């Protein structure tokens, strides 16, 4: 792509660049589904934080289909898939001393998640 010229800056910033992908990729989960995050420790980029690996949560909302950064950062492969807000209780992530009321919502993709049993 060409050099960003002064007269193109404002338009370029206003347009931005959505990571949303207009592709017909089926969702593996629906809001309300119970999920467990994978226990992965890749050497490359991942959006699944350490503090939320191997934890049980609930799909809160489906944001739609997005580029998957875990592959996009490492090889450029966008591997489009659904991205969800996943709800975790503070106690699931931090143990019995955490507030019984508080929740943490983390945006995760299909490749970070498996169905939780039961």
């Amino acid at each position, binding site marked *: 792509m060409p050099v960003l010229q002064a007269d193109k800056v404002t338009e*370029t910033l206003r*347009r931005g660049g959505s990571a949303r992908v207009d592709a017909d990729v089926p969702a593996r989960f629906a809001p309300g589904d119970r999920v467990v995050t994978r226990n992965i420790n890749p050497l490359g980029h991942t959006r699944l934080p350490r503090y939320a690996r191997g934890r049980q949560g609930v799909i809160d909302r489906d*944001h739609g289909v997005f580029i998957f*950064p875990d592959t996009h950062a490492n090889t450029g492969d966008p591997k489009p898939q659904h991205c969800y807000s996943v709800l975790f209780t503070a106690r699931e992530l931090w143990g019995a001393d955490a507030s019984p*009321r*508080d929740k*943490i919502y983390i945006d995760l993709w299909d490749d970070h998640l498996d169905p939780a049993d039961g």
Partner: protein
Amino acid sequence: MTGHDHQHDSSLSPTELRVKALESLLTEKGLVDPAALDILIETYENKVGPRNGARVVARAWTDPDYKKRLLEDGSSAIAELGYTGRQGEDMVVLENTPSVHNLVVCTLCSCYPWPVLGLPPVWYKAAPYRSRAVIDPRGVMAEFGLVLDDDVEVRVWDSTAELRYLVLPERPAGTDGMSEEALAELVTRDSMIGTGLALQPK
């Protein structure tokens, strides 16, 4: 600065020197347009900032239909006011209520809704906030002087994807009849991150 007019300067820090060297090289190679750099800086230093988000919030406080659209499709409703683009392409608005308080963080880097809040403050990008917002949100908010009752549910949103989150703070009591413009003055940056509340009217 170009490759031919270097200032000889040994008082530069290593970081300042590195930035000067890179800008000089990239300009000389024709890879960056220095005038474009100036416009990028001017845009985020003086044009885009939390006053944009404050207008969104004030509109939502005064126009129930707008608020409904904002909560259903944040990106489109925010675009109605002209705020679009980089780092705000896919917006989600989170409503605070008497029983729910939302707090936004990016534990992995510094994701922040630029078109409505501008560039993030240093503390938002720094380790103390990023590390503790998810494990001790009430302690973090207390450092900002915000102490919530135990029966309020705290929802922390870790911006790990390309969604960008804006908190819709509660409208303060005693603001009936205030204009949208006057209401916007009560909306602080921190109230739209969740580390504060909207100001009380004077």
